[in-house]
């Protein structure tokens, strides 16, 4: 299939394809980080993860309208404010949900799946009643929608770079919080031994609520960032849920590093396959590979040594 192309053209294509793989990678990481925290650290299966993402997207939409209406001069930077607000909105909703629902279900992890599925139905309907059944168009500041021409042939999309930057920032701050902050120590303590953690004076209830809130907040930021590359509608959240869970499980649930490694593996596999075969089959092959490996190595790529 490469006949008749000059080597510079081929180099350019491979460079851009590599970049496509990297931006898919950052999309996966961003989707999965929030879930990795909630599922990996708390064992809660949050089927409403996609809906928390879409909440972030709708917040971005509202902020964009506000800025276009009242502060058109600042429209170019509204996105940063939108992301912060998306984090807060999804985080608060997450904390509320944890308080009202999830904390009663910690002993029954499979039941959280059903309850959060119910929650996702309710959220979808609320979005539909509030914003209408149609997709909303989030206008993105012009500077974020173009591309940088590196050479004549290689063009790098700015929104891809932006998503990557957001991913790096979020992933780093989660890493720092997890391993350097008091909250992180408390979370890890609670994960390893809830009773003991409680006994040494950690407010496990508060830790749980905060963890769930932060996980949902990150989902909100992801949703906000995805308005640049995807659609915003009441049911758009469901598009992400399977991929997200697979990334987390494939990585080994309790390991953030594992999540990143698995996002990298899956995104590169899919991106390379997509280049050589049709998109549908690439997706099937990727999923099959992941499931196949999981059958051989059920604990995922990285696993925390834990006594259960």
């Amino acid at each position: 299939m490469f006949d008749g192309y000059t080597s510079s053209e081929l180099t350019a294509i491979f460079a851009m394809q590599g970049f496509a793989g990297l931006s898919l990678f950052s999309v996966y990481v961003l989707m999965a980080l929030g879930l990795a925290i909630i599922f990996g650290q708390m064992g809660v299966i949050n089927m409403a993860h996609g809906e928390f993402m879409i909440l972030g997207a709708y917040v971005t939409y509202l902020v964009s309208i506000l800025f276009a209406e009242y502060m058109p001069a600042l429209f170019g930077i509204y996105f940063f404010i939108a992301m912060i607000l998306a984090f807060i909105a999804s985080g608060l909703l997450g904390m509320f949900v944890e308080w009202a629902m999830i904390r009663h279900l910690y002993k029954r992890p499979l039941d959280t799946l059903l309850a959060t599925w119910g929650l996702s139905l309710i959220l979808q309907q609320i979005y539909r009643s509030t914003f209408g059944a149609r997709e909303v168009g989030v206008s993105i500041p012009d500077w974020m929608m173009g591309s940088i021409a590196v050479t004549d042939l290689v063009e790098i999309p700015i929104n891809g770079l932006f998503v990557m930057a957001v991913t790096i920032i979020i992933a780093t701050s989660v890493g720092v919080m997890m391993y350097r902050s008091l909250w992180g120590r408390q979370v890890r303590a609670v994960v390893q031994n809830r009773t003991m953690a409680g006994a040494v004076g950690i407010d496990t209830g508060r830790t749980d609520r905060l963890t769930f809130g932060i996980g949902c907040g990150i989902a909100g930021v992801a949703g906000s960032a995805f308005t640049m590359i995807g659609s915003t509608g009441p049911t758009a959240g469901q598009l992400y849920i399977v991929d997200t869970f697979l990334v987390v499980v494939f990585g080994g649930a309790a390991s953030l590093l594992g999540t990143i490694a698995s996002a990298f593996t899956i995104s590169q596999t899919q991106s390379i396959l997509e280049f050589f075969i049709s998109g549908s089959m690439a997706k099937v092959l990727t999923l099959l590979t992941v499931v196949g490996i999981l059958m051989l190595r059920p604990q995922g790529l990285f696993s925390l040594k834990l006594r259960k």
Partner: protein
Amino acid sequence: MSDVSTPDPRQSRLFTASELLGYLVLAAVIFIVLPSVLDAFRLNLFGKYLSYAFVAIGLVLCWGVGGILSLGQGVFFGLGGYCMAMFLKLEASTPENTSIQSTPGIPDFMDWNQLTELPWWWVPFNSLTFTVVAIVVVPVILAFIIGFAMFTRRVGGVYFAIITQAIAAIATILIIGQQGFTGGVNGITDLRTLMGWDIRPDSAKTALYFVNGVLLFAVLFVAHMILKSKAGRLMIAIRDREDRVRFSGYNVANFKIFVFCAGAAFAAIGGAMFTLQVGFISPTLVGIVPSIYMVIFCAVGGRLSLLGAVYGALLVNWAQTTFSESFPELWLLAMGALFIAVVMAFPLGLAGLYDDYLKRHIDRLLAPVDRMMMRRAARKTSPKAPAPTAQAAE
């Protein structure tokens, strides 16, 4: 529980009086009450709901008893449905019916996708016998492969749920992508006759409803036998303390594979009945969303109760139909609230409510019957069967 009549589960009598009553009531509901109060259209709808009940029964075994939550039951339901649909489609695609196609005699969607002959793996589905066998065997083989790979490596709980979910996603994409062979998103539609018998008129649908009911009881009976068998009791032990069972020398994986395969077979029978009653099968019944709904039928009915699962499937589907007819814009809210309420407030579902509030009274009423049954059983089996003791049932 101090009730003297509470039977000792170790006695493993096939039915207690209250279980028997439960089955009789369900039989009355399915075979007498529903057909006499519903018109043909509504009865057909309930037939559709009952085809989901097969899946829910399988889930009681896998999830309630075995602790294995599968989010991929839609795959088995779909496989059963697709096997049935392939047979019906071949029967409907006679050269006369399809004379306008460029290749008459093959299903219409194949013709649209430029296939010029029937794929080899469609050919055996010309035979009803093969189809009936395939409906059960194909899903069981798949379940065995999945179960063998996962359970021998001790994958369980949440991981199993998510992997089966991924399998459901793969199955959907695969079916949609291979539309020349599977009918794609549309599914296999326009099914007409079964061995020359038109399945579309109301009379046929009513007949199918009763066939469905009989099959449901057959499946209920098998599931009941499994529960009452040694395997059933071991499954409960595995769910509660897997390590101890393993240390006692049992091969835990084999038991799990067994119930998972049984669940798959039940789901597949349901799928085949679905195809017959609804008249088509499509990938929307295979994916993640229907699979989760199937779990919810089971959860609402009560994950520990076979009968509960049947009522759960009926109730949720009926509620969905009713809500969506009366409040089409808001029914999702009602459904969402129902799921949350069931999980939060009634984790054992309808069956749990029954156990908490009704069972005591019914057991007391039935006590004489129970004693009589037990005496008779005792006489029949061995003269020195122990008398029922006051030992707690739990």
